[in-house]
């Protein structure tokens, strides 16, 4: 009887393992190919140069050491303002969008007046294509502005090529901060809704204010989620396109209004293995990307460690 039971358990365990590895096989294969292989290929590409073969179709590949990294470094030095723009956007997302998202989420989680409508309207921009809002915003900042305020300032609108770079950048920045709330607020609200009601009730009996309840009860509960968002945004500093493709339609914006995220996408779209005039080749782009990756890895891991260590605890 005991032998039968042991044999039965063994068979069960075996069938579980067969099922587990059988179902994991394809996803793991895709992951190996499109994550590990692509990243490995990208690293390899950074040390190679492609050139068209003479007299036949295809490319010749040669190992060029750190030549691509030198070109990438020159690109960074010549357009350091792209890094500045990316960092400026991240800073404003941190100091404006994140606190506001938490405040809005708290208001909605508490089911205060009109919270149902606010919840829907905050998420609506996430549902509608970014082209729609970017296009409407662009037309409002150009045609509508010119008609209503053109006689006062910026007669060609806020995004015209001959408008001051700082004005164009501020206009694009405002667009990004205006539509940034949807996903954040939804996740924060869900997390806040899971807080134990007895804690809130006892705090209310003690007469805590709106701000005290938010700071001492809600914020510690959402701190892990908040940490995740801060770190994810940091990880996206050099891939964030700042909505420039949507606003300027893929064309290169005025010099001074660009990020490396948009530069990467634009170049990936138009360039090739050998590169085109004025654009880095795929190999040089890979080298540039690697350099940013090595800067961001310690930053994101370090920030996460610090926030977990020094952040408020639920206890």
């Amino acid at each position: 009887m005991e032998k039968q039971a042991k044999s039965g358990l063994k068979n069960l365990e075996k069938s579980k393992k067969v099922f587990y590895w059988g179902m994991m096989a394809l996803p793991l294969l895709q992951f190996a190919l499109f994550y590990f292989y692509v990243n490995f290929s990208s690293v390899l590409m950074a040390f190679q140069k492609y050139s068209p073969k003479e007299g036949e179709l295809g490319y010749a590949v040669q190992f060029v050491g750190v030549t691509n990294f030198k070109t990438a470094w020159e690109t960074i030095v010549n357009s350091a303002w792209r890094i500045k723009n990316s960092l400026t956007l991240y800073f404003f997302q941190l100091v404006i969008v994140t606190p506001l998202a938490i405040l809005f989420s708290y208001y909605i989680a508490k089911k205060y007046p009109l919270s149902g409508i606010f919840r829907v309207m905050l998420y609506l921009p996430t549902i509608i294509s970014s082209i729609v809002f970017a296009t409407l915003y662009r037309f409002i900042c150009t045609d509508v502005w010119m008609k209503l305020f053109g006689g006062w300032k910026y007669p060609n609108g806020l995004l015209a090529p001959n408008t001051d770079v700082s004005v164009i950048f501020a206009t694009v920045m405002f667009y990004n901060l205006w539509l940034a709330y949807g996903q954040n607020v939804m996740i924060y609200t869900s997390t806040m809704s899971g807080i134990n009601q007895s804690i809130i009730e006892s705090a209310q009996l003690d007469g805590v204010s709106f701000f005290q309840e938010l700071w001492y009860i809600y914020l510690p509960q959402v701190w892990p989620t908040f940490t995740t968002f801060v770190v994810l945004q940091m990880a996206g500093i050099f891939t964030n396109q700042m909505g420039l493709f949507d606003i300027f339609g893929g064309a290169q914006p005025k010099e001074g209004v660009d990020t490396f995220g948009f530069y990467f996408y634009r170049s990936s779209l138009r360039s090739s293995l050998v590169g085109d005039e004025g654009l880095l080749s795929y190999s040089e782009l890979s080298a540039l990307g690697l350099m940013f990756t090595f800067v961001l890895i310690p930053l994101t891991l370090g920030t996460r460690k610090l926030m977990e260590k020094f952040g408020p605890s639920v206890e």
Partner: protein
Amino acid sequence: MKKVKLLTGKFSVFSICVCTLLIVYVLSVTGVLFWGLLTSLKSYIDFGLMGNVIGLPDLQYSKDALLFRNYRLAIEYTMSLALGNNSYHSSIFGFIELRPRSVPFWEMIINSFVYSTLCSLAHVICVMTVSYLCAKFKYAFSKILNTMMLVVMMIPIVGTAPAKVTLMRDLGLSSNYLGMIILNFHFTGMYYFIFHAHFQGMSDTYTEAACLDGASQVQIFVKIIIPLSAKMMGTIFVLSFIGGWNGYQDSLLFFPAQPTLSYGLQRITSGATSSIQNAEVQSLPVMVAACMILALPLIVLFLSMKDVILGSMTMGGVKE
């Protein structure tokens, strides 16, 4: 007592300030969309020549526009554009050449529908399967994979698009439906953690009872796990579908031979040159009408399914 009342409750000073901010925000979003709707119903004479940029459509100049003339012109404009890129590359199936071409409107809608459906289905099935395996099968590899998902999300890898594009082209997966499925059959991203939390919270009672009744793992997965997760899968599918419908950058990069509706309309709104040289067709109200074609169906879908879409999706703290 009065001071306490001012600082606590739904009508405290702070809550009124936050409410005011939210009202301003809501008015800005609805205001912009309403302006878009009004503009799409104005003729180019009314908007451009008469300078009616923010008022209601003038019946004297916008009679035809009120009958959705701008929407018809937007569709004509989209079909007159050459969409896609020039590319010539080698693959395991030989050399593949792509050229820009005019695409009928119905083909763009089908491309969008197929692209969104295939990508969403592939992603939801993959992420749901892997997160179930990691949450319910307590093997060492499950823990390793869980940690790897955290690492993949947190560690930024910049500039891999060229390598990915090259791989897709070399494998002959660029610009075909199989490529769409394979590219999106991945389990990385936020939805992994959402499903993982869902499966961790799911009671083992059902599966244990099924095991005792002699059900195989496949039967448990198909007859118990999938039905119990149907609502979550449906929500994630709808969100992924909306993302695929709206997005154009990935489809442009990896599937340029199947231009989607959002790509076609993006080309209009960026003022792309068309074979139709007509000031009315290339006017602002027509471009805005193109935006409305993209936006209105999704607004209707969202408002009718908002409870499903905004249902509880907690990511929680992402800790090792």
